[in-house]
């Protein structure tokens, strides 16, 4: 650390990063060696499966000419997109899994996918194509709304809050919208003055619904909390 600051100087920072890099390199080398040893042991144990895996990885060298034209490749892509768009991802992936390496290469080329190597693996091609499929699906997905909450839904939220308030306070009948909002406003004021939510709700109720409210009927155990009711009513303003 530098003498006048608790932060490292750029030179110290570079040295530290270089140390971290060499540590990571050592770690990666050891992992790579371990994976190589495991691979060799597997190949020795299952020689048949290993040769199959090799063929799949290098992209099915048996057929070097594609079975589809560029136009058909795009049509296949559209088919996969259509399936993915309705949520049939498994089916869409199965279509791509059934394609040979050369056909996948034609599809990838037609989609303008830049594959990093001259002989890309089937897996890399499939993943790249499926990336374009996801892109295509995303391009057409919309959730257009004209407003945040439809008025009828807002009305339902308020009605539900009023019903719950009636039950919780033990009122004889559901109060008017105006009285409910007055109660919520007063409860909020009392809460801001330092009262608990239960106290605030009860005092506001005795002031607002004085004729028909009795604190003994207050149900403080079940249903929504006073805070949630005040919040729900306030948000409908």
């Amino acid at each position, binding site marked *: 650390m530098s003498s006048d600051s608790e932060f490292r100087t750029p030179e110290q920072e570079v040295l530290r990063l270089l140390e971290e890099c060499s540590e990571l390199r050592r770690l990666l080398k050891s992992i790579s060696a371990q994976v190589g040893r495991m691979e060799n042991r597997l190949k020795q144990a299952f020689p048949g499966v290993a040769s199959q895996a090799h063929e799949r990885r290098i992209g099915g060298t048996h057929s070097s000419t594609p079975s589809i034209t560029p136009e058909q490749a*795009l049509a296949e892509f559209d088919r996969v997109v259509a399936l993915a768009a309705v949520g049939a991802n498994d089916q869409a992936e199965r279509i791509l899994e059934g394609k040979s390496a050369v056909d996948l290469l034609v599809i990838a*080329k*037609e*989609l*303008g*996918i*830049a594959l990093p190597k001259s002989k890309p693996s089937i897996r890399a091609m499939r993943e790249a194509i499926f990336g*374009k499929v996801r*892109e*295509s699906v*995303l*391009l*057409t997905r*919309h959730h*257009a709304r*004209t407003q945040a909450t439809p008025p009828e839904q807002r009305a339902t939220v308020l009605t539900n809050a009023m019903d719950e308030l009636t039950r919780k306070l033990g009122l004889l009948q559901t109060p008017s919208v105006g009285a409910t909002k007055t109660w919520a406003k007063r409860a909020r004021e009392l809460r801001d003055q330092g009262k608990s939510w239960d106290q605030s709700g009860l005092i506001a109720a005795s002031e607002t619904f004085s004729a028909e409210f009795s604190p003994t009927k207050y149900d403080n155990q079940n249903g929504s909390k006073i805070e949630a009711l005040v919040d729900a009513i306030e948000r409908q303003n």
Partner: protein
Amino acid sequence: MSGNQSPKTIATINFKGGVGKTTVTWCLADTLATYSDASVLMFDLDAQMSLTQAVGLNEDSGTLHPAFGNWYEKSVNNRRTIFDAIDQYTKPAAHFDFPIAYDFIYQISKSLHFVPSVEDLYWLELEVFDRDQMKDFMRRLLGKIGHSGKVADYSYVLFDCPPSFTLLSYSVLACCDLVLIPVNPDFFASRGVSLLLNSLKMRIEPHPTPQIAVFMNKTKTYAEAPTKETAFYMRQIEQICQRTSREQGIRATFFDDAWVRDRVGIKRAITGGGVPADLVKDFQGLWSACLGVLK
């Protein structure tokens, strides 16, 4: 405007920034004014004022050209800007008698004229709350320009719209003949088109949705044709246009043949004396495609 005929009006819009709205508006207007007999009026409606600054910018000194600078200052001082026109139009119970002359419209060349932007447009949404009040503003303003007798008869009016849905862009979209949407060969720009097409009708209602045209700008090319990657996005956008036309009941066309190639330093076309020779054909092609859908 051209005899008794109303000019054709085209609004360049996309809510995605950086797709080339300003450059395309300028290049189309400049190509038309330079290579045809049409007279063109161009509006900068973006509070960012990119087109306005580019029109008046002296590349060498980095300052405004004295001619434009002096004219602009006078226009602002005499309250003859687009904001003053809106201010006059929205005054309660006042007749819209905003005077139209060349102190409101700047003459870039004989056949290319320009209504610049002003920074007051930034606060327009706060000053003017009433959407309904604004909806007919541009229609009325164009009517005034057409009947003023003090400015040219314009064949075409081009609008460079802001990258958001403002009251002013609402007013333009409610009266224009063609909405021109430039798009780039990438996911985000393509998504922008999709979003725009899916909500435009809803935003413009109750006015009828104008004809919409989408084209690929900044096209990456190989051997004089779009690259496969660009072609992928062109195909995607064409499908989006077809689908939204069907589902939303709008008329959205994708110009698959009229694309504009990517070119480094194209923005200098505005400040540096015209559309580069290798792009003139692209813009002429784009213009022909626009006329095709306007017919």
